[in-house]
């Protein structure tokens, strides 16, 4: 009965190639180890199901008395108790090493990520002497180096999950959790919030960019400088006039508020609204006027009083920040 479905599943699974956000398309060492483990566990589970089905069919078909009382008790003892005990003990021993976190050294890159309804506040090297580099809704990591994520939340519980990189870790107000990872392959990926956090929990994702070490270092150096594109444009004036700087920071301008997402180098971001929309100027303008249309429950107030043209000018200004 199930066979046609299994085939359909297999086909669907193979055709639906999702390389961005999947525990099966890995780009980190931790996720690779777990995928390996998942394979072993699945094979074991399939074998056990097959054995159980075979035993059950024999049990139902066996004529009365084929199995004596003592034989039955031996079966319960060996197959029901001793067998599972041995298998589970082996499994525990197999899995224990993977529970140990990756070792860290003093110079390792630390990235602090804070979850908020419904976006991500990101800070690179938060303890460094250089000016801290903050960002939002995008995490960049160097390939081949150990990275320590420090995870917490300001409002409610969120969970930080980059399926291709490593398992998830909760972000809990009042606590700071550590997740230590190492990326193995450069590329663009996606992370999501995995703990239900309110109205737009489904719309809380982020972009992950794994870069070669040298590229990453260059990017860090470039990013610590002021955003390019900070000019006295109409969009910039409107940004000031409507008080956008009351919540948002842009490096190289007087705006350094930390209520909403940091918009420095906004033009570099691959998505808008924490991983949910393509960052076209039209989308940005619409988001400025009615954020709740794209993202129910978003904390940013709506600005219906900003005209479409003005919103578009602000969007163009933001898109120019690189």
């Amino acid at each position, binding site marked *: *009965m*199930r066979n046609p*479905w299994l085939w*359909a*599943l297999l086909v*669907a*699974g193979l*055709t*639906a*190639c*999702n390389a*961005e956000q*999947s*525990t099966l398309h890995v780009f980190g060492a931790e996720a690779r180890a777990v995928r390996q483990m*998942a394979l072993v*566990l699945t094979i074991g*589970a399939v074998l056990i*199901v097959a054995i159980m089905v075979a035993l*059950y069919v024999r*049990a*139902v*078909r*066996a004529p*009365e008395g*084929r*199995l004596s009382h003592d034989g*039955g*008790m031996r*079966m*319960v003892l060996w*197959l*029901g*108790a001793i067998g*599972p*005990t041995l298998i*589970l003990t082996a499994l525990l021993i197999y*899995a*224990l090493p*993977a*529970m140990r976190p990756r070792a860290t050294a003093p110079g390792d890159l630390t990235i602090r990520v804070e979850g908020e309804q419904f976006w991500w506040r990101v800070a690179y090297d938060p303890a460094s002497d250089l000016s801290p580099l903050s960002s939002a809704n995008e995490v960049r990591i160097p390939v081949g180096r150990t990275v320590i994520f420090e995870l917490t939340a300001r*409002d*409610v*519980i969120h*969970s930080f*999950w980059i399926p291709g990189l490593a*398992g*998830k*870790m*909760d972000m*809990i107000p*009042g*606590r700071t959790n550590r997740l230590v990872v190492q990326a193995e392959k450069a590329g663009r990926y996606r992370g999501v919030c*995995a703990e*239900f956090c*309110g*109205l737009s*929990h*489904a*719309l809380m994702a982020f972009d992950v960019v794994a870069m070669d070490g040298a590229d990453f270092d260059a990017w860090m150096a470039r990013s610590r400088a002021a955003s390019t594109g900070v000019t006295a444009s109409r969009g910039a004036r409107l940004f000031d006039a409507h008080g956008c700087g009351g919540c948002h920071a842009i490096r190289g301008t007087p705006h350094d508020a930390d209520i909403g997402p940091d918009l420095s180098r906004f033009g570099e971001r691959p998505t808008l609204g924490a991983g949910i929309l393509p960052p076209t100027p039209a989308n940005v303008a619409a988001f400025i006027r009615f954020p709740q249309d794209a993202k*129910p429950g978003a904390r940013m107030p709506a600005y219906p009083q900003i005209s479409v043209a003005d919103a578009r000018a602000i969007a163009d200004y933001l898109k120019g920040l690189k």
Partner: protein
Amino acid sequence: MSLHDQDDPALRAAQEDRLRAVWKPPQGLFLRWTDTNNNRVGVWYVLTAFGFMLFAGVLALIMRTQLAVPDNDLVSANSFNQLFTLHGSMMMFLFAVPMFEAVSIILLPQLLGARDLPFPRLSAFGYWSFLIGGVFVSGSIFFNAAPDGGWFMYPPLTTRTDLSGLGADIWMLGLSFIEVSSVAAAVELIVGVLKCRPPGMRLNLMPLYAWYILVVAVMILFAFPPLIAGDILFEMERLLDWPFFDANRGGDPLLWQHLFWIFGHPEVYIIFLPSIALFAMLVPTFANRHLLGYPWIVLAAVGTAFLSFGLWVHHMFTTGLPKISLAFFSAASEAVAIPTGVQIFVFIATLWAGRVTWSTPLLYATGSLAIFVIGGLTGVMVAVAPFDWQAHDSYFIVAHLHYVLIGGTLMPLFAGLYYYWPLITGKKLSDRLGRIAFWMLFAGANLTFFPMHLSGLMGMPRRVFTYPAELGLGGLNLMSTAGAYLFAAGVAVICVDLALSPRRAKAPRNPWNAGTLEWLAHPDDEDWGIRSVPLVESRYPIWDQPDFVRKVDEGRFFLPDAEEGRRETIVTTVLDARPLAVIRLGTPSVKPMLTAIALGGVFIFTTYHLYWAALACGIATLACTLWWLWTGTAEIPEKPCKPIGHGLELPLYLSGPAAPGWWAMFITMMADATAFSGLVFGYFFFWTRHADFPPATMADGPGILWPMVALAVGVIGWLATIGARDIHARGGVAAARILLLLGITHSIVGVGAGLAGPWTSGLDPQAHSYPAIVWTLAIWTSAHAGVAAIMQGYALARSLAGKMNPDHDADLRNVSIYMHFYALSAVVTYATIGLFPEVA
């Protein structure tokens, strides 16, 4: 009465007329709802729980429709969050647990050859509470006010009133009310199993279903109270702004997660073990032999229950707990598979050794086992912490838990439905429709949930109202949706089968040729339960004891008559079921319903912040309870003893540890103490979280003086009551009354002294988690002091009214049990809040 007398058909007919008259259900449009007989209340209970299951199933269908294609906008985020919260909460609290209790209320007396459960009115109270609470919680979705924080209700999302609305209160208070009714049913079932077995049915002859009821009811007793404690803290934060879960004021969101999952994990086994119990009844029937390995399966059930309390942290593997505790809980989570393996292999070995009669119930049981085994194996996978870090809160878990719950609860219930329908209605369900439905359910469940393993591993988180097309999850989700509709159609076929049942002819008695007592039920059901209470000498008496059915039917065993026109059943000893007494059972009454309505008012009015109305309902609840107890319990019989046949003469009154009432009190207080320990756990949890607890600004806490005064008066009140009990038993009625009066005074002083500590030291419960938890402990114990005063007053009044005397002192003995637990709470509370800051 000798055996010989029962040979006379005229005598038997006269006995039957008397039994029929005594057990006649109340008639009339309203009065019929005041019935308390387990057959009637059990059926209402089952139908109501079934209705909630269908309702919650429809919610799931709406969700699956929304998720059928990516970027769908059929329902809003707001509605979707209400849908999944209510779906999970209803299936757990309004279907799975109540359904077990409902089925047990119907079956237990029949399994034990009892006329009814020991406290029929308590069952009715539980039912009405369940109905009111259930309608309140589930109806909220029609007002767009349903809870929307997930069935786990994690704070701070749910405790911050700016982030969550009335729904959170509806969840907390509505379901707390239902938890109360669940605990009430658990008390009823435990006492039923321990005290109301037929003579000769020693513990090791008990039908396995009764063993499982015992195990599961004990689990309810210890699992629900921590959640009730959590609910109390939760509502204190929501209604009064006491910061238990607010990290900015010394609280911690993880405290809720611990309390919730200390309940939540045993809950899984609370709803799974009863299904194994149904298998344990029907497998021997269809294998045509005794179940093989009776002691093994009992030990496995007890072992599962024990282990299930040590696994809760596996729901918290991603909260950043120390790795060593992950390893420990990983091991414990895997270990629970061992007793489960034993139970499954007991069934396989029994089928192997026996001669299998294939049937629709067995088909369902087989299908459930297959689905359950898959769910169990993915359970072992997620018990491995590193795998769980990926799978946790993804659709992989949705797949896992539905395999477990469909294979471990829903399908077994359908097996039980097809098996026991003839017992309840006298008619069989259609084999043909049953099989069609089975294959739809089996295919539907696999088609819905198997793809979810993959969609979860492909990165689809749980509780999302939509997902982007780019992730390539559309195909898998469409399959799941199609499967959900197929599954729903299968349920519809079963409903059609049930609806056709009244038109079908009666089946023969015991149509499956089973061997256990419940199949004595006659198709032309009489309300008296069993014609005469048998002497049981085997686990399968219908198979093993010669002429058994005829002897029961002809009243040749015990208690074949109702000479005094009273509803009665036999009470036996806990271990070896020696007959102890005949007890008079509660008759139909409106009191349980009124008490449930009043108590419901307390919870519902509190939800809407109508505190004066809630207080009025609280007073009404107390009044109804006292009225119910005063008129219906510990009645002094008109004669000390009565004959029950075979030359046996049994007393009509019991007090102390022999009495069902004493056990009920003791068990209730165990639940109370467990809830209390949940609050104490909160205190010490905060202490381990903070380097300075109490914080420096309130280092003196509530001081030492008042807590010690409260402790002293508590202990004196307790000693006075114990003294009253002992002196009263030796005939010192006047001295006992004076001691009770002394006890009342000290209990009343205890209320004030308990609150005086935090009050006089000016602890502000909104400032920090420390004063909040100190206040909570003090209020808890002071409230218990208040109840102590009422109970001591009740005993005194009973004595003055002549309803209690040295030979009939059940009231005073039950009050003493309460006082033991009150004294224990006082010692722990006042030592903790008064002395612990000095040593910490």
